[in-house]
């Protein structure tokens, strides 16, 4: 068995499952937002901010945000282990990706609950 410490869940099966579950969440959220925009063509600011004030939309959005983090981490980790052969460069790339994803998640929480 190939060992590694930088993959998301350290198990191929776990990463694979999380990649698919997060993809499902991202698709559902995309459909939800697109659907909302299509069915509310004359959208006002109050309506839009009201939508994000409801708790379930915030939870759904947070779930989506976390899914983006997980999905992109697994995906970019795969890309980096495919194409970046120098260990130092690969580890640096993975660290930058991890940091950016963490920033997005923390920042996203601030945006969602700071409205």
């Amino acid at each position: 068995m190939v060992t590694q410490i930088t993959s998301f869940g350290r198990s191929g099966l776990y990463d694979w499952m999380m990649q698919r579950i997060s993809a499902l969440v991202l698709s559902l959220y995309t459909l939800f937002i697109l659907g909302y925009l299509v069915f509310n063509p004359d959208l006002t600011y109050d309506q839009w901010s009201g939508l994000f004030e409801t708790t379930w939309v915030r939870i759904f959005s947070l779930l989506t945000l976390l899914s983006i983090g997980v999905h992109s981490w697994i995906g970019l980790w795969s890309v980096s282990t495919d194409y970046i052969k120098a260990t130092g460069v690969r580890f640096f790339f993975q660290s930058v990706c991890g940091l950016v994803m963490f920033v997005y998640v923390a920042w996203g929480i601030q945006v969602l609950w700071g409205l």
Partner: protein
Amino acid sequence: MLVSIYRYNPEVDDAPYMKDYQIDLPAGKDLMVLDVLQLLKEQDSSISYRRSCREGVCGSDGMNMNGKNGLACITPVSAAAKDDKLILRPLPGLPVVRDLVVDMGQFYKQYEKIRPYLINESPAPAIERLQSPEEREKLDGLYECILCACCSTACPSFWWNPDKFVGPSGLLQAYRFLIDSRDTATQERLSDLDDPFSVFRCHGIMNCVNVCPKGLNPTKAIGNIRTMLLQRAT
């Protein structure tokens, strides 16, 4: 017909190059690519390639013909050549020993890793380990693999991580033993595959299915391994 062949002799050449040959093929006959190579041997005896059974059984003459991997002995020139030009290269992704001969070491190493033999700790019966026709049927589409390496060397995941990703051929064989009713090492076999590389580096692009000269489906076998891993873990 114009035949362009990848030439490289590491003892003489600094770098590989493509060499063109003109050849008159007998009219009214659709030769196999291997036959063309045999005819070219008369023009230039230094062209190197592997061949043995010349009927698609031994898997020795896997090569890249006009961009697609296949066995030269069972690929008609009419199917491989484009615009009356035949381009022959070694299987991609493996080190070239000479001309169309590649070093299959890495490929065999992955094959060895999946333990391609029946493991059964129970005492052997007097005659044989019996299998019902239904159990035997599960091996169809798996046991036929001749290890020609056409699939694994068509797979980008194998190109980038040949030391970690088992590759379509090895995984087809892995499933052949996972699903065998006589094998008792299923759990150990699955545990050996549950990392991010061995199985899960397959992204299902199906290049393997597209090139397999025996018409097998490694992608389906890989999907079945994933299902077995998932069923075991949930």
